[in-house]
């Protein structure tokens, strides 16, 4: 009776940990445009929005299109299923999750925006005052 409970609990804990690894593993890897083109799988493309090129939302296909520049300066077209993400204009950088299509654009299922950290005073302002 007792050992059964102990062994059972250990198995439950072990598999909870095993399950939690799936969470870390599934973090799709970050890469730049060249890396994303080379790998034919789902990646997280890191870069920023090229504000000089037009970004538009096509209401018919419900897709949002914009141009992304990565850290090496390379540029590509990103088509996102859905509307522009929150705070897209304010974002300092964006991460697009998806894969390169054969037509030569990056097809994103999700775009995350990175905004300035939220619960601190602006660092620049802190410098001014101190």
């Amino acid at each position: 009776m007792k050992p059964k409970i102990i062994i059972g609990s250990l198995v439950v804990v072990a598999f909870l940990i095993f399950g939690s690894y799936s969470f870390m593993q599934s973090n799709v890897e970050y890469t730049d445009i060249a890396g994303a083109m080379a790998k034919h799988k789902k990646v997280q493309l890191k870069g920023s929005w090229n504000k000089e090129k037009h970004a538009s939302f096509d209401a018919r296909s419900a897709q949002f299109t914009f141009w992304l520049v990565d850290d090496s300066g390379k540029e590509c077209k990103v088509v996102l299923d859905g509307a522009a993400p929150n705070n897209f204009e304010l974002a300092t950088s964006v991460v697009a999750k998806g894969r390169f299509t054969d037509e030569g654009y990056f097809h994103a299922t999700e775009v995350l925006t990175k905004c300035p950290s939220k619960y601190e005073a602006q660092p620049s302002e802190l410098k001014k005052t101190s």
Partner: protein
Amino acid sequence: MSAARPSFRLFLRSTGAVFLKDLRSELRTRYAVSALIMFVVTTISIILFSLGSEGASPDALSGMLWVVVFFAAMSGLSRTFVMEEERGTTLTLQLLAPPGAVFFGKLLFNLVLVTGVNAVTVVLYSAFINGFVIRTMSIFVVTVLLGSIGFAAAATVIAAIIARANTRGTLYPVLSFPIVLPLLLSVIDATRMASEGAFFGEAAGEFQLLISYIVVVIVSSAMLFEYIWKD
């Protein structure tokens, strides 16, 4: 009580006998199977009517497949325990079988039932719903298989709980939903990957999660079952 140490072989025999008893009873009455299949046919035709000529996105379609599976499972999988309680044979089983054998026997029966019904569901769904395309078959097959086991595992223990309560019908979906939800989200995600044409390796995380869900639910249910089963 001083008694013989339960031997593992005897335990397996009891488990098998409980499973066979349920299987033969089901083959004779066809109660659960007919309800399940009718449910699947009804929901799929409702989806067909509501979609009309318009298609839906592959994402939505892969989600809807599992909605059909979820509600079908909810309508049929509680039968194994509720039936014993309604006909007053719970005591009979308590006299005959060790609790573990009842649990694993019923789990096995639910597993066979849900796997069979899911196979029918998937075939009907792919045949009738146009926009539903699977690009990576391997991911899809493994997902349906693991999903079925997960559903059977969660459904069995919840059924054991509600069978002992007074109002059963409404309680079953209420209790199951929060337990089954992580499984549901995970299989929907994996099915989406399969329809997107992802590589098998990309879904490894999902499978790992599904396997650990199955093990965690089965092991903890097996430990708790004795308390639920005995008055």
